[in-house]
């Protein structure tokens, strides 16, 4: 087997999924992806993913928005076109706070959403490969890497390991489909 292949299996319960993932991880099985219909807590910890850095993107977006929002108003009313409005000073800081705040929130929110979409490679027009139509319904899919040098024997051994954890519908698949998603 030269091609990268993987195994697809599913659980029908999230409790079972967590148990299964824990024991598979212990045995050193390579888990490529897990697809769930709703966020199942702790999977990311079991699989050893780091905390998302999306908060920092939000912070930077917000900071940029605040600086642009406040700076622009100051520039307009002190440098570009000072206007006397109701006897207020040109640099009327309290007046500039609301727009600054709104700009902060707006930029932070957009920065985060864009970062999320780009990093996750999803967005309008994305063509995902759907492994199982019920993975957005009631099935908890796992995709397990087989490895380049796997023989038929190692594959069936792996299949046994997976089915021992209570998974069903174990199928061997080619890599072509998987790489489409990432």
């Amino acid at each position, binding site marked *: 087997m030269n091609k990268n292949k993987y195994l697809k299996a599913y659980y029908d319960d999230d409790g079972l999924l967590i148990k299964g993932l824990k024991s598979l991880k212990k045995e050193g099985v390579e888990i490529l992806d897990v*697809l769930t*219909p*709703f966020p199942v807590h702790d999977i990311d910890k079991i699989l050893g993913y780091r905390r998302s850095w999306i908060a920092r993107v*939000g912070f930077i977006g917000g900071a940029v928005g605040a600086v642009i929002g406040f700076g*622009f108003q100051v520039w307009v009313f002190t440098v570009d076109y000072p206007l006397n409005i109701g006897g207020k000073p040109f640099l009327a800081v309290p007046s500039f706070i609301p727009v600054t705040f709104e700009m902060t929130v707006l930029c932070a929110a957009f920065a985060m959403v864009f970062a999320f979409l780009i990093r996750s490679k999803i967005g309008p027009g994305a063509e995902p490969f759907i*492994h199982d139509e019920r993975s957005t*319904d009631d099935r908890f899919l796992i995709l397990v890497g087989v490895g380049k040098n796997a023989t038929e024997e190692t594959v069936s051994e792996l299949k046994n390991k997976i089915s021992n954890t209570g998974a069903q519908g174990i199928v061997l698949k080619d890599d072509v489909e998987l790489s489409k998603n990432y």
Partner: protein
Amino acid sequence: MYVSPVRELLIKGDKNYKKVTNDITKPIVNKPGKLWFLGVSVTSLAAIIGLFAMFITVRDGIGMWGVNKTVGWGWSITNLVWWIGIGHAGTFISAILLLFRQKWRTSINRSAEAMTIFAVMCAGIFPLIHMGRLPLGYFILPYPSTRQLWVNFNSPLLWDVFAISTYFLVSLLFWYMGLLPDIATLRDNVKNKILKPVYKFLSFGWTGSVRHWSRHESMSLILAGLAAPLVLSVHSIVSFDFATSIIPGWHTTIFPPYFVSGAIFSGFAMVLTLMIVARKTMNLTEYITVGHIESMNKIIITTGSIVGIAYITELFMAWYSGVIYERFTFYNRALGPYAWAYWIMMTCNVISPQLLWIRKLRRSILFTFILSIFINIGMWFERFVIVVTSLHRDYLPSSWQMYKPTLTEIAIFAGSLGIFFTLFLLFIRFFPVIAIAEVKSILKSSGEKQVNITQNLLENE
């Protein structure tokens, strides 16, 4: 996570994940009923009448309205504030209640957010047509123009432009990001040949990968953290429109938090009005239970009482301040020519919600429905009282005027209701009313049948 048996369960009946999907997507997968078509025809008729009245207004000018030199803001601004207020419940539910870990929000947040977006759209109509020259509406944006003049950043009306558009965009993002997994569920469940590719496009390629979920959760939380102060800011800035002036009855420092509280109050009333109907007609009574309605009623009584305290505070401070104009305005509100509006407001907003202290009434669906309509009316009158009674008696008695709406104004308001309900009916037809993924995530800890199984498992371990 352990949940105390003392708590009321949130999802009734014998449910599993499959059933949740089927129950909630049923109205979308199936053909719509007669009731739905009837509803849409009524509401879109109202919308068309409203659009025609707007056309008349733009063609002939603001003279078509009853506003005059003294009362320059009539129904139009009343409606703007009312709609913006209604638009506060959705983001409150999905952002602030998320931060407070209120699980009951999962059954109502999606539709409440949709209401937010539609209500803000309706609100946006009014200042735009009130400016008179609709095609020049873009003047409100700060862009480098040939006049070399920028917009006035000292004006609360301009702050409104930023606040409302930011609120609209961020609410839209928040709503859509939450909707992604549910659209993916629809994509995989709908058989219709036209709808399936549409959902496929709208789902942005969501597969439910754990990497996506993990990021999605982080993002949702921070978006909630951003949206929470945003909710407060929007109605505060709307209140600044009034409070920065020196008109008695408008210039008072309590306005920002009091407006926010009133907004959430009226928003929840509208959510209750619509959801009580929707849960029955769409067979969702097991997801939106009496417990949910009671929780919402608790928020109604809290925010309603805050509003009541603010009324009394204003009244007292008008006397305490010793300023004759302030004193007159409040005296005039309660006993002057618009006293009827004032007392409608007081009855609907302050007195009637106090009945909710009785647990039986709090859990009565019929009573809640009637009360929610009372509150909607009362909150509309609150804005009417603030706008009109403060204006119609100016500093100079020679400019005292009365204000009466014309048919055009009434038609525009009816039209905005039509637009709102049409959009909402379209929403429930094509998108899930309840957040499918979020309800599934609380099924084990709060579902009636599931809890016993989970508890047994925990004990066996």
